C-alpha cells in the first residue's frame, strides 16, 4: 500500500539561532530567532514548536510580524521544562523550530473594519504580531483599539513599545492592572471594566482576544452586552500539543484540532464546541 503524499509535517526541527535575548519581566523573555535557510513565513496568530535537544518541545506563538524582519520573535514565560531551559539560552544560542502551525488571526476579516484587540497577560505575546502587522499596513484598517490587562505594572509586556504603537501606529491603547503600588497612573481593575468605556460599532468591529480561559468567560459577557455579533469575535485557545499536525489528539476540542483549525477560533464556531470555553 503506497499512495505517497508529500512529506509535510516532520518531527525533525530546523536549528535556529537566537540573535538577541532580552528579559521583558521577571518571568518573560523575548527571543529573536533566525532560521538558516528561510524566513519563517508565518501569519499573525500562528505558532511554532520550539525545542531543545533532550529537554522537550513547546508550542509558542510568534510575537512579531513577518513584515518586520527576516527573523521572528518569541516571547516565552518561564513555566516548566522547555521554557526554563530556553531561559538559559543566551544570544548566539541555538534552538529547534518546527512550523509555523495553525491558521492564525483573521486578517481578511479585519480589513476595512474597526479592530478591537483584547490581551490578558501573556495574551499580548501573540497579539503583538497582529499589532505590528496593523502598524505596518495601517491604512487597511479603520479604528484600532488594544486593551491590555496584567496583574501588576511590572508584569505588563512590551510596555516600552506602547508609545510607538500609539503614535506611529495610531492605535488606541488602554492598559489596566489588577493591583498597583504608588506611581502607576493608568487604570486599576479587571480588563473587563475597560470594555464598557470604549466606543464600539458592533457591526463594523472585529474583536480578537487572547488570554486565559477565565478571562474569556467574563470578556464574552461584556462583548455580548455591547451587542457584538458572535461571528465577529475571535478567541485564541491554548491546549496541550505534541505534534502540531492534527495527529496526536492532545489539542482536540470536540471535533476540531487547535493546531490545525486554530489556535484562533471564531466565537460562533466555538458555540458548537462545548469543551472550548466552559
Amino acid at each position, binding site marked *: 500500500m503506497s499512495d505517497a503524499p508529500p512529506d509535510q509535517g516532520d518531527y525533525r526541527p530546523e536549528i535556529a539561532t537566537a540573535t538577541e535575548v532580552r528579559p521583558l519581566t521577571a518571568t518573560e523573555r523575548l527571543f529573536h530567532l533566525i532560521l538558516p535557510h528561510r524566513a519563517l513565513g508565518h501569519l499573525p496568530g500562528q505558532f511554532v514548536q520550539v525545542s531543545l535537544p*533532550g*529537554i*522537550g518541545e513547546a508550542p509558542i506563538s510568534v510575537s512579531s510580524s513577518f513584515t518586520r524582519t527576516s527573523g521572528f520573535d518569541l516571547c516565552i514565560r518561564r513555566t*516548566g*521544562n522547555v521554557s*526554563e*531551559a530556553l531561559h*538559559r539560552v543566551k544570544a548566539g544560542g541555538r534552538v529547534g523550530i518546527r512550523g509555523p502551525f495553525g491558521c492564525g488571526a483573521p486578517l481578511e476579516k479585519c480589513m476595512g473594519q474597526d479592530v478591537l484587540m483584547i490581551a490578558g497577560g501573556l495574551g499580548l505575546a501573540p497579539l503583538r504580531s497582529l499589532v505590528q502587522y496593523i502598524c505596518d499596513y495601517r491604512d487597511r484598517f479603520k479604528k484600532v483599539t488594544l486593551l491590555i490587562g496584567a496583574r501588576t505594572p511590572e508584569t505588563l509586556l512590551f510596555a516600552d513599545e506602547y508609545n510607538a504603537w500609539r503614535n506611529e501606529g495610531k492605535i488606541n491603547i488602554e492598559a489596566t492592572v489588577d493591583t498597583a503600588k504608588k506611581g502607576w497612573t493608568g487604570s486599576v481593575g479587571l480588563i473587563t471594566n475597560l470594555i464598557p468605556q470604549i466606543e464600539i460599532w458592533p457591526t463594523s468591529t472585529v474583536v480578537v482576544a487572547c488570554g486565559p480561559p477565565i478571562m474569556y468567560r467574563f470578556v464574552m459577557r461584556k462583548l455580548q452586552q455591547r451587542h457584538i455579533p458572535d461571528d465577529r469575535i475571535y478567541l485564541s485557545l491554548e491546549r496541550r500539543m505534541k505534534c502540531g499536525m492534527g495527529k496526536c489528539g492532545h489539542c482536540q476540542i470536540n471535533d476540531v484540532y487547535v493546531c490545525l483549525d486554530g489556535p484562533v477560533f471564531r466565537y460562533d464556531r466555538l458555540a458548537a464546541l462545548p469543551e472550548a470555553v466552559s
Partner: protein
Amino acid sequence: MNKLRVAFYSLTSCEGCQLAFLECEDRLLDILQQVEIVRFREASSYEGGELDADADVAFVEGSVSTAHDESAVRTIRMRSRRVVAFGACADLGGVNAIKNRQGNEAAKERVYGPYSSWIHTSDVRPVSAVVPVDFTLHGCPVDKDELVRYLYALAVGRKPADPTAPVCFECKLRENICLFHKGGTCMGPVVRGGCRAICPAYGAGCDGCRGLAPDPNVALMRTLLREKGLNSEAIRRRVDLFNASAVPEDLRRELTGYA
C-alpha cells in the same frame, strides 16, 4: 560541563533500589560520565561522614521508621538541592508500613519479646511526610530504565517525566492476557504504571507497589475483586502490602468495603 553531584542514601529498606542502580550494568559507565556519585555506601568508600556531602540530587531510599532516620533525612534535605523519593518505601512507606497497622508495641513484643524496650521504632512514614520531596521514583524496586531516564533528565536540567497511566494501559501494550480473564485478580486498573506491567507480564497480578493512580475508581475495583471471591479482609491485605499507610482513609474504606 559540571557533573551532576548525586548521592544515594538509605533509610529503613532492603537496599534493593540502590542495587537497581548497580544493575544498570552496561549503562553504568555512561552514566558515570554525566554524574559524580558523592555518596553510595553500599558500593564505595569516601572521605567524610555518612551524611555530610553537598549533592545536587539525593536519592533517598527507604522509609522513615526511627528517630535516626528522621534526623538523617532532615540533614539530607538541608544538604541537597533536590530530593528524590527513591522506591516504594520512600514513596509510600512500602511494606514497612504494614507494621503501622499492627501497632509498634505489638510488633516489638512479637519480635523482641522481653527485650522490646531496647528497640526503638516509630510509625513508618514516607520521606515526604518528613521533608519536602522534589521528585519520586516509584516501584518496589524501581525500574532500571526509568532510573536511567531520571538521571539523564536531571543531568540536563529538566524535570523527569512521571507517568501516571494505570498499569492496565502498559499491560495492553505488552499484549499480556488480563489476569481477570485468566481467573486471577489484579490491582492494575487503579495502580499507577510506569513498571511496564512487569508483574502481569510474568503472570502475577499487580499488588500496587507504585501507589494509586490519579482519580482511581476504587468502587469498581472493589466490585471486581468481590466478584472474584475476595472478601474485605483479603482486599485489605492486598492493599496493605505496599500501601498500608499510603491510601487515604476514605478511599481505603471504599476499596476494602469496610464501614
